């Protein structure tokens, strides 16, 4: 009975998170187009619904009803497998993101944490592990399409993802040293009490933060690191031969990844759901029981700040070249991240010395 309630609660949480994430993905496409349009002096989508608000639904319907094309020279098994391999790792990472305070709640005698699907003690490693699997979707999709542009896109993606994953891993080590835990919940909890306790400021993880944000943009294949799909060079890179729902899967994976890395950035460096002040505003207003609402709002605001950053960067920067990307990753970001790890561990060692 207990197990069933536990499983039921977990399923409810998974369903909630998936619905929120997928809705965010859908409206993120609209948000991106709108933000870009405003930055570029134009209107963006305006036709479907008021201010084009229903555009994502129209897009989704269109992709859903498109003819499903598998090129004649393609390897159909891998060609169909690749979008799934892309989208699953992108969605699976949300299992360990704490999007609200680490409260416990009792339902029929079972204690559950309502604001995180599961709090495993290697949370951040778990996300990294599955993020690294996402590269397979790109590489296999590129190879299976039997198209030279796709192949080149796949190869670029492979090299890029490996290089920048390393930087992501190293950039967050500073935070892990500070928090002494790999659990996302514990990391978020450790930053309570105002923005000067956030690891970005309090832990002086500015270098780590910058390296992480740059690498995260590269990891999600967004401009200026979108070399794998570089529409002016490789047509659409590994997605060139994809259409319909398979293409939609890749698209969803890209946006879900964006949300995921934004969530990680928010949790690791900006305190996750923590308020930037020592107390929650809503407590002063006299509703201490409603604290979690404000916490979720803070988390959302932080995540959307990063998402906006993604759009902003896309509107501003041109694309890097492949060799410049590699040189930047290996010769600039990697030494920076290593130095950050070294300095943080030394400082932490001396500060924590009893």
């Amino acid at each position, binding site marked *: 009975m207990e197990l069933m309630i536990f499983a039921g609660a977990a399923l409810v949480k998974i369903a909630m998170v998936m619905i929120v994430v997928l809705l965010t993905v859908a409206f993120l496409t609209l948000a991106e187009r709108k933000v870009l349009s405003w930055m570029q002096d134009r209107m963006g989508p305006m036709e479907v619904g008021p201010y084009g608000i229903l555009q994502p639904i129209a897009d989704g319907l269109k992709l859903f009803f498109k003819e499903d094309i598998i090129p004649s020279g393609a390897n159909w098994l891998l060609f169909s497998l690749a979008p799934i391999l892309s989208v699953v790792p992108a969605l699976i990472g949300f299992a360990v993101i704490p999007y609200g305070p680490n409260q416990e709640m009792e339902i029929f005698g079972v204690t559950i944490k309502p604001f995180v699907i599961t709090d495993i003690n290697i949370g951040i490693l778990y996300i990294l592990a599955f993020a690294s699997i996402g590269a397979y979707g790109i590489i296999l999709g590129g190879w299976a399409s039997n198209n030279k542009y796709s192949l080149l896109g796949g*190869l670029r993606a492979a090299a890029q993802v490996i290089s920048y994953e390393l930087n992501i891993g190293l950039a967050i080590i500073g935070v892990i040293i500070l928090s002494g835990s790999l659990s996302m919940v514990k990391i978020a909890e450790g930053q309570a009490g105002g923005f000067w306790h956030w690891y970005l400021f309090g832990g002086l993880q500015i270098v780590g933060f910058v390296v992480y944000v740059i690498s995260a943009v590269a990891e999600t294949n967004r401009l200026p690191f979108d070399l794998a799909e570089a529409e002016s060079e490789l047509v659409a890179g590994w997605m060139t031969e994809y259409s319909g729902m398979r293409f939609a899967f890749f698209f969803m994976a890209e946006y879900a990844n964006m949300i995921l890395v934004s969530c990680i950035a928010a949790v690791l460096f900006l305190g996750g759901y923590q308020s930037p002040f020592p107390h929650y505003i809503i407590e002063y207003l006299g509703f201490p029981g409603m604290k979690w609402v404000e916490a979720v709002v803070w988390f959302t605001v932080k995540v959307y700040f990063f998402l906006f950053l993604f759009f902003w960067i896309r509107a501003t920067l041109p694309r890097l070249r492949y060799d410049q990307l590699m040189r930047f990753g290996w010769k600039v970001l990697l030494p920076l991240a290593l130095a950050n790890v070294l300095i943080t561990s030394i400082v932490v060692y001396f500060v924590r010395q009893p």
Partner: protein
Amino acid sequence: METVAFFYFAAVIVLTAVLVVAFRNPIYSVIALLVMFFHVAGLFVTLHAEFLAAVQIVVYAGAILVLYLFVVMLLNLKQDDSYQRQVGWGIGLGIVGLAEMIYLVLSAQVGNSPAIGTAALQASASPKVAAIVTRGNTEAIGYMLYTKYLFPFEVASLILLVAMIGAILLAKKGVLGMKEP
């Protein structure tokens, strides 16, 4: 429950390991290897070694195998038939391996050796396992690596360093060689 999981993971590992060498298309082999790595990670999870499981996926599936795939795609290997010509060797080695397995299973049952079976392992090392579970296995692994196994750890690091320098040297030589007329 745990036994079921163990046998599922073990069976899939054996099957995919065979498939890795049996597939004629190197890309399929890489996919089979990927599935295998995942199931090895699953085995680690059943042993409460989540850290190892995650690292297994990050390092092997996420980095090394991607590199394999990269190389396979770059070289654009044709389908290789050499495996089919080594059937004789394969059968011979298979018989030896089978014999070893039968011998081990028999001796385990006869001598009730604790080396076989997860239950036996857990029974023999249960205080340690409990300690690991309470302390968090990441910390336990770090602790073990830097105390008891410090020397092997450093040796392993040194070997990796040598390999890395060697790889750089080899690659560099190739680049320089290409520039010569």
